[in-house]
């Protein structure tokens, strides 16, 4: 059996940037995001057998990250969503729709926003998101549909039915 820390290091290089993006999208203080990435991997090494047996280690790590984030929110009692995050300043060429889109995403209910983020930013499947959040696939689907219907209305306020 190979060294688990070598496997973990490989997984870290593959997944840590995405996890960092996930935490930075959900928390106000970027320094916290670094710590939470480390905390996610500390918990992963504690349950290394489960990590090895996971169908998709990436989804498994995001499942841990979800709980790490919730624990951090409980500890800190502050929750600053998307609006206070380090977002790149809009450039001249940037699509004019992106700013209202960001604002609309930040106003989504937390459950919908996190589901949308896991889908569109982390490119997880419905089944993987269901595993990460511990909810049925149908709930993932309905959350995403509601979020997209709302965002569609933001982009195009009076679409034909």
């Amino acid at each position: 059996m190979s060294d688990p820390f070598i496997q973990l290091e490989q997984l870290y290089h593959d997944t840590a940037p995405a996890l960092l993006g996930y935490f930075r999208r959900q928390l106000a203080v970027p320094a916290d995001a670094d710590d939470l990435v480390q905390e996610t991997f500390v918990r992963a090494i504690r349950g290394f057998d489960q990590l090895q047996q996971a169908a998709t280690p990436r989804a498994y790590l995001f499942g841990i990250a979800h709980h790490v984030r919730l624990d951090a929110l409980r500890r800190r009692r502050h929750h600053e969503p998307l609006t206070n995050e380090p977002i790149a300043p809009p450039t001249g060429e940037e699509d004019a729709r992106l700013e209202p889109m960001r604002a609309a995403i930040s106003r989504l209910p937390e459950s919908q926003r996190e589901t949308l983020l896991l889908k569109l930013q982390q490119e997880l499947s419905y089944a993987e998101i269901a595993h990460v959040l511990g909810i049925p696939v149908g709930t993932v689907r309905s959350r995403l549909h509601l979020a997209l219907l709302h965002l569609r209305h933001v982009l195009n306020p009076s679409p034909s039915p």
Partner: protein
Amino acid sequence: MKPEHLESLLLDRALGELSPAVADLLEAHLARDPEAARRAADFDVTVGAARQALHSTPAVAPPPFDRARFERAGSGNRLIGRRTELLRLAACLAVGLGAGWLLRQPEPISLHATRVAVVHPPVNSSTTPFWSISRFAPETLPLARETQP
């Protein structure tokens, strides 16, 4: 197809969650229905804009892999695992002893019953009064004699 079903399928399509077979059927439907095709394109634009908005965060490098910290966490976990195993064994032992204590027999039960013979004195109807107990319930006679002062 019902509009709400079509809308759900269009959203799944925009999110890339349709199976190839369903996607083919839906594309055939969209080719025949321009209004549905327009709505599908609308959802595609929405998903594209949302994806672009979420990906516009500047890339930041994660902290370097801290092997020493993870090794400490792993070794700590092994110690915790050993301690947990010992605690489980101790708990099983305690439960077993407790169950044994509760189910113990206080003293052996004798399997031989003692047969007791009750001998009633003969009732003489000529000497006993009419309302005498011995006339109606001769089996209670010994008890009645004991309770008499």
